[in-house]
């Protein structure tokens, strides 16, 4: 089945990764590059969550009615990708904030956000 949830999620994750990569490589403005990296991050998170998805199953939370301690292995999905993404989102926030602060300091120093004005590491 082509238009199932997992295929849509896979396609959109890959699409977001590509958009982020393209944006980071083609833009000259540092803020735009940071936005592109953030989009890339989201795409990777969607991909990881998709790999833990199983059709027809529910979240691994015991509620005593539909999911109980006895049948959780049969009706719930894999908890590990969700746990990884949970922390990855917060790390993504920290990395984005750090990049923005670097951009702020760079702009303070040279009054420019164009990456072409920073040639110190060029040879």
């Amino acid at each position, binding site marked *: 089945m082509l238009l199932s949830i997992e295929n849509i999620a896979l396609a959109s994750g*890959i699409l977001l990764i590509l958009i982020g990569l393209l944006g980071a490589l083609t833009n000259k403005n540092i803020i735009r590059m940071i936005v592109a990296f953030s989009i890339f991050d989201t795409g990777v998170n969607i991909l990881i969550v998709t790999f833990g998805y199983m059709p027809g199953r529910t979240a691994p939370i015991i509620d005593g009615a539909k999911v109980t301690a006895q049948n959780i292995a049969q009706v719930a999905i894999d908890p590990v990708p969700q746990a990884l993404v949970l922390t990855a989102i917060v790390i993504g926030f920290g990395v984005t904030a750090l990049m923005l*602060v670097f951009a702020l300091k760079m702009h303070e120093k040279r009054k420019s956000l164009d990456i072409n004005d920073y040639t110190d590491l060029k040879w």
Partner: protein
Amino acid sequence: MLKNSFIALLVLAFGVLLFHGVVKLYKVPEKLNRTAEFYNSNEASQIGAANVVTAVVVTYRGLYTLGEVTVLFLAASVIGFFLKRKKKTAPVDAKPAGSELMTTASKVLVPGSIILGVYVFVNGHLTPGGGFQGGAIIGTAILLLALANPTYSISKKVFHWIESISGFVFVAIGLAGLLLAGGFLDTRFLPNGEMLSLFSAGAIPLIYSMIGLKVGSEISGIILELNDTQPNQD
């Protein structure tokens, strides 16, 4: 531009490669893999948390979470170090107020958001919530506060103290697990209690509350730090 189209072509090739690899490797799993099987079927008797994801984050892979919190702390302190400034000698009374809308909204929403954040991280072992989500909600409340009062500088000292103390208590609970139970960050030194009640799952509510406070104060600290560097535009 020729260069940009070349890059676009390269990215497209990478995308085709990625898509091909992922679609070929990925097939919809019929049953859980062995790790997930172990976590799902043994979690209720071993840890006693209703939310298996919480048990994985806090207990089974608690060391990852400790490292993750450390990374966030490092990011927050680097940001604080970079944005450190001399005290501005701006006149205190020349403050433009925030917009009427933001001020009113912040009066209504900030206390509720903070309570919601605390609720989310206290109930992290029962509901799809937890320390990171609750901390992020508290961070948004502080962001709203900062947007409503753009020049009113909120003291960052209290956030630094909350962050340090909660981080310390997190490690101390982990060490208590080492001394009283099976190992570092083992939460079973407190009784498991009755499943689906607030006081259950050993020390998980304690640890997740500490993570929530720590993440919330770190996000608030970053936001306030960035807010303070904004020059007064008027």
